[in-house]
């Protein structure tokens, strides 16, 4: 069947449709961001950032929630990065191709598919109760680690596998051991990719409520140790909104959350720039 529409016309039509799709996507994003920022801006003062909440958060600031979120992410980062990269190095560089590797990879994939609420329940049973960490930064951070670990492993493994084999051979041919080769040549070459994976994972973790409400608690006091409970920002704004405490404050908290995500992404770009400076530029 020959089309009745001339190719030039359909070409133009396709262009217009793609442009419209792209515009809708951009506008939606801008609208959401704009709406939140406009709603949240009035409460965004220095005291909002630097004070503790009063009246369950209806007044005062959100400093404990900001600090709590940072502490949780720090525990998550410090546990997920070494474990995730270690596992990825094992899978990509050491594990013999075969049944065991495939079983581990399959396990990692399954872990990635577990709904966060289930990880929250597991974290409650295992970390809070069984290990006795209680509702705490430690429990929440580790539970978030369980959630993002599969991402970190998968992305790291792929980044390692993407490092050209010629670099490994070049290093080994100079009399380097396998570990020297992996740690000094392969891993640094994979850092930009791994960073992206970790940031993606942390980006998931920062907005997570289901996992932490079962593990980190909901205290509005300033934490003083790893074993203190905290209320993370997304959970705080969930409570502010769902219990009708203050919509204004909820939007203010959202803006802070957005800025934190933005800062993290900028950090990722900076790291990639730094490590990527030796990579092929076109």
């Amino acid at each position: 069947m020959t089309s009745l529409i001339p190719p030039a016309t359909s070409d133009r039509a396709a262009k217009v449709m793609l442009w419209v799709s792209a515009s809708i996507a951009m506008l939606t994003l801008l609208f959401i961001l704009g709406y939140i920022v406009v709603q949240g801006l009035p409460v965004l003062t220095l005291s909002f950032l630097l004070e503790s909440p009063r009246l369950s958060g209806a007044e005062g600031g959100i400093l404990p929630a900001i600090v709590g979120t940072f502490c949780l992410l720090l525990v998550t980062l410090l546990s997920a990065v070494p474990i995730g990269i270690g596992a990825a190095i094992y899978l990509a560089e050491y594990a013999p191709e075969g049944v065991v590797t495939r079983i581990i990879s399959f396990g990692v994939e399954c872990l990635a598919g577990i709904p966060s609420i289930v990880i929250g329940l597991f974290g409650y049973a295992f970390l809070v109760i069984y290990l006795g960490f209680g509702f705490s930064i430690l429990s929440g951070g580790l539970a978030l680690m369980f959630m993002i670990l599969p991402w970190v492993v998968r992305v790291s493994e792929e980044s390692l596998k993407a490092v050209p084999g010629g670099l490994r051979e070049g290093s080994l041919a100079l009399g380097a051991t396998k570990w020297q080769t992996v740690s000094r040549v392969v891993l640094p070459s994979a850092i930009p990719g791994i960073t992206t994976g970790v940031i993606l994972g942390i980006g998931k973790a920062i907005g997570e409520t289901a996992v932490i409400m079962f593990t980190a608690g909901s205290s509005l006091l300033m934490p003083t140790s790893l074993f203190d409970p905290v209320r993370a920002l997304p959970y705080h704004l969930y409570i502010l909104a769902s219990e009708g405490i203050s919509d204004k404050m909820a939007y203010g908290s959202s803006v802070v959350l957005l800025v934190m995500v933005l800062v993290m992404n900028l950090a990722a770009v900076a790291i990639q720039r730094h490590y990527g400076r030796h990579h092929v530029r076109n």
Partner: protein
Amino acid sequence: MSEIEIESRNLDLWYGSAQALKEITMAMPEKKVTAIIGPSGCGKSSFIRCINRMNDLVKDCHITGELLFEGTNIYGNNVDAVELRKKIGMVFQKPNPFPMSIYDNVAYGPRVHGLRNREELDRIVEESLKASALWNEVGDIPDRSAIDLSGGQQQRLCIARTLAVKPKVILFDEPCSALDPISTAKIEDLINTLKHDYTIVIVTHNMQQAARVSDYTAFFLLGELVEFGKTKQIFELPEKKSTEDYITGRFG
């Protein structure tokens, strides 16, 4: 004739059940250039990669026979491949500089082998860059990324990196096949200089190159060593018909 540095005796190599090298017996003299020529897929790379045990990395690759380096069978029980590779360096077909600075590329080997002294490292880097005819071009920009160099410079950097480890033997696997004629000529000149200090084995599919740089030539065909001898003799008076056919360009 000088001392024999590397000698292969009845060397067989299989990838799984496919035999890639059959009964290779030949001796490579010290501080001479031995070229290995032959059509694509005849086993040149497989053979040269036996000499520094690079084939250890290939799954399902197994080797029988002997490969002697300074009289010791490198496939013997108590030979450490990592130690061996400090003495037998290798330059690959595709330049493979590490994604680091020029300086760090050259210092990589010495550092990996435990050298920390900055002055000593500086000295080795300078020496190696001079010996690989790269000093004039990059001596004043050691902190530049190696990735920014041209292909020919990258390959000479890979040679410098190998020299920095102070090997006795350097293996070249088609080092110029990715390079332009001018870069190729520079590498050939370099090989002609290096042979005063190192034993060199070079794989090439370029017969003129073999004729220009080598003292001895081995002609491989379908995994077998057809003929081995002084380069002059192989090129002017080959004993075997297939050698003559290959050299005169009748196949391959």
